[in-house]
C-alpha cells in the first residue's frame, strides 16, 4: 500500500566501444572482417567528401540548399550497415551517407538537392522510401511499413532515422506507441546531433537522453555513442536482429554532433560557440575509426590514399553525370500525380500548362486561345 518507486519493464542501455583514441573495448568489439571494415571506412570518407564537395558547389551556385551530414557518418552508416536490401529504410533528409550505402547514386543525390524531381527516382532492388523534408512525418509511415510486414508475414525489418528535433513532434511519439502495441519490426534511430537548426538539445527537451522515451512507450532503448562506428554497428545489429525475430521495436539514440551548418542557408555562428564545435572535433567519427584501423593494421597510409582518391574519382564521375542530367524538365510536373488515368480536369490543366510552357520556352508571348 505505501508509496514506492516503480520502474518500467524496458530499460535503456548506454553503449560505446571505441574511445577517442580509437581503442576498442575488446569484449564489445563486433570484430568485423577486414573487408567490411574498409568498406565502412570508405563509405564514411565518401559521405564526408561528398558533403564538402557539395558545399563548394552550393557556394558556387551549382547546387541548391542542402543539409550536410559532417560528423554523423558513423551514426548513419552504422545504422544501415546490417540491413538487407529487402529491408526497408525510411531516411530523414540528412542521410547522404546512409543513402549511398543503400545504393543511391551520387548524381541522384545531387539531382535531388539541386531541385530536380528526377532526384527521387529510387534505386532498384532496395526498399527505400523517398525522404520528406517535413520533420518527423516519415516516422509513422515507416511504422506502417513495419506493421505491414507482420500482416504479410515477411521477415523484413524497417529502419528509420530522425533528428533530436523530430523527437518533439507528436508523430514520433505516436509512432513509438503504434510500433510497440503492434510489436512491429522496426528500429527507430534518433540521430541526436545536438541541434535542431539553432535550438540546442537542452532546449528541445528536458531529458538527458532521447533513449529514455523507449521504456515510456514499451520498447528497449539504447543510448549509443553515435561517433563510434563499432557501437553503432553493434547496437543496430542487435535491434535489427530482435525485430527480425519477432522481438518488436527498439529506439536507439545515436549521440553525435552536426559539425556543419544546419543547411547551406544557415549561419551557425549566430547561435553556437566555436569551442563547442572544437570539442566535438576531438570526437570525430572518422578519425577515431581511422586510429582503430591503423592500430589494427587494417588501414595504412597507402590504402588511405587509395581510398581517398577512389572516393574523389567516384564523386567526380557522379558530378559529371549530374551535370549531364541536370536539365530542367518542366514538362513532367503533372506526371506521377495519380496512378490511375489523369482525371479530365487535370488533363485540361496540363494542356493549359504545356501550352504556356511551350510559349515560355520559345520566348514567345502567350496568345489567347
Amino acid at each position: 500500500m505505501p508509496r514506492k518507486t516503480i520502474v518500467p519493464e524496458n530499460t535503456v542501455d548506454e553503449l560505446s566501444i571505441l574511445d577517442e583514441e580509437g581503442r576498442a573495448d575488446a569484449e564489445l568489439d563486433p570484430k568485423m572482417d577486414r573487408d567490411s571494415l574498409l568498406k565502412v571506412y570508405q563509405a564514411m570518407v565518401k559521405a564526408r567528401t561528398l558533403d564538402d564537395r557539395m558545399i563548394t558547389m552550393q557556394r558556387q551556385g551549382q547546387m541548391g540548399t542542402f543539409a550536410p551530414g559532417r560528423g554523423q557518418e558513423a551514426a548513419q552508416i552504422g545504422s544501415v550497415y546490417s540491413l538487407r536490401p529487402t529491408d526497408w529504410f525510411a531516411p530523414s533528409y540528412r542521410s547522404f551517407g546512409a543513402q549511398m550505402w543503400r545504393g543511391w547514386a551520387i548524381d541522384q543525390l545531387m539531382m535531388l538537392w539541386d531541385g530536380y524531381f528526377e532526384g527521387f527516382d529510387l534505386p532498384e532492388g532496395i526498399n527505400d522510401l523517398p525522404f520528406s523534408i517535413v520533420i518527423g512525418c516519415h516516422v509513422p509511415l515507416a511504422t506502417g511499413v513495419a506493421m505491414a510486414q507482420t500482416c504479410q508475414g515477411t521477415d523484413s525489418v524497417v529502419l528509420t532515422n530522425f533528428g533530436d528535433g523530430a523527437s518533439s513532434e507528436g508523430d514520433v511519439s505516436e509512432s513509438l506507441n503504434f510500433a510497440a502495441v503492434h510489436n512491429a519490426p522496426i528500429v527507430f534511430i534518433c540521430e541526436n546531433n545536438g541541434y535542431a537548426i539553432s535550438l540546442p538539445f537542452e532546449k528541445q527537451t528536458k531529458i538527458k537522453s532521447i533513449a529514455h522515451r523507449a521504456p515510456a512507450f514499451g520498447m528497449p532503448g539504447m543510448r549509443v555513442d553515435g561517433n563510434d562506428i563499432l557501437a553503432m554497428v553493434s547496437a543496430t545489429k542487435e535491434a535489427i536482429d530482435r525485430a527480425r525475430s519477432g522481438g518488436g521495436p527498439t529506439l536507439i539514440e545515436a549521440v553525435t554532433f552536426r559539425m556543419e551548418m544546419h543547411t547551406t542557408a544557415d549561419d551557425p555562428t549566430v547561435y553556437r560557440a566555436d569551442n563547442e564545435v572544437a570539442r566535438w572535433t576531438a570526437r570525430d567519427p572518422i578519425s577515431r575509426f581511422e586510429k582503430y584501423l591503423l592500430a589494427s593494421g587494417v588501414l595504412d597510409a597507402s590504402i588511405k590514399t587509395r581510398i581517398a582518391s577512389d572516393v574523389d574519382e567516384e564523386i567526380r564521375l557522379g558530378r559529371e553525370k549530374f551535370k549531364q542530367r541536370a536539365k530542367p524538365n518542366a514538362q513532367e510536373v503533372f506526371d506521377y500525380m495519380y496512378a490511375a488515368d489523369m482525371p479530365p480536369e487535370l488533363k485540361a490543366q496540363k494542356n493549359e500548362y504545356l501550352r504556356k510552357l511551350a510559349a515560355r520556352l520559345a520566348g514567345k508571348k502567350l496568345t489567347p486561345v
Partner: protein
Amino acid sequence: MPKMNMARALNLALKQNLASDPTVVVMGEDVGVDGGVFRITKGLLEEFGPKRVMDSPLAEAGIIGTAVGMAAAGLKPVAEIQFSGFTYQAFHQIEQNMARLHNRSRGRYKVQMVMRAPYGGGIRAVEHHSESREAYWAHTPGLKVVIPSGPRLARSLLHAAIHDPDPVIFYEPKAIYRAFKEEVPEEPEAFEIGKARVVRVGSDITLIAYGAMIRPTLEAADDLEETHGIRAEVIDLISIWPMDTETLAASVSKTGRAVVVHEGPRSCGIGAEVVARINESAFAHLEAPVARVTGYDIHFPFFQVERFYLPDSEAVVESALEAVNY
C-alpha cells in the same frame, strides 16, 4: 435484391473486399471488437481476424501515417477516422504523405488506400461531430474525394474507392446511415470515380448537391414542379474531386440556371468551385447568378438548433425561384 440501409451497404462493401482481396485491411479506432461507433465495421474482426482488422490506438495522425506506410508496402488499407472533425489531427499525414507519396516516389509506391469518415450534421451530436469540410480535401492535390448519397451508391462507390489505385477520401453522410433502405445487389457494382449523376431530369434549372443534401434537394425539385411548375434537373455530384464539370456544364447549358447545395461553410466551399466551373464552362448560357445554399461561415451550432441551421428543401426552393425570376 436485399433491401438495406447505407450502414449495412458499407459494411457489405468492406466485407466483400476483405474476402476477395487478401491485401485489403481495415483499421481505425474501435473498428474491431466494437465494430465501429456507427457499426460500419461490425463483424469484420470476427470474420477476418486481427491481422486484417486492426483496432488502432487513439491517434489519427498515427492511423493515417501508418496506413500510408502499409500502402507503400503493398496493402490496401481502409482507415476509418471516427468523425471527420478529427481528420484534422491527421491533416499533415494526409497532405504530406497520403496525397504525395506516389508523386514523391515518382510512381514507385502506390498509395492505394481509403480514408473513411462520417461527416455532416443531423444526428444531434456534440461539438466537432457535425462538420462538412470536404473542401479541404478538394483543395489538396493528390487526393480523390467522394461522397455517397444512399445505400446502393455507397456500396458501389466504396468498392470503387478500394479498387482505385490512388488515395481516396470517402466521406459518409452520417445523417443517412440508417435513414432509409434501398435494394442493393449481392454482386459488387462498378462505379467510375469522377462521374456525377443526373438523378432527376429537368429543363428549367439545375440543382447540384451531394451526400445527405440530395434528399432535401430532391424534395425541393418535387416542390418546384408541383407548386410552381418549374422542372428542375438534379445532379448528385458524388465525386467532389475530380469534379464532373462536363455533366454540370451540359445541364446548365440547357437550363441556364443553377443552385448548388452543401452543408459546409460557404467561403471557399465546394459551392464556390461549382460556381467557378459553371462560370468557366457555361457562362454564355447563364441567365441568373448561380446560387449557393450552404452552411454559413460559422461553427456548426450546438444540436438543439441544428435543424434551423442545415440547408433544407425550402431554402433550395427559395433560391431556385429567385434564379428563375431573376
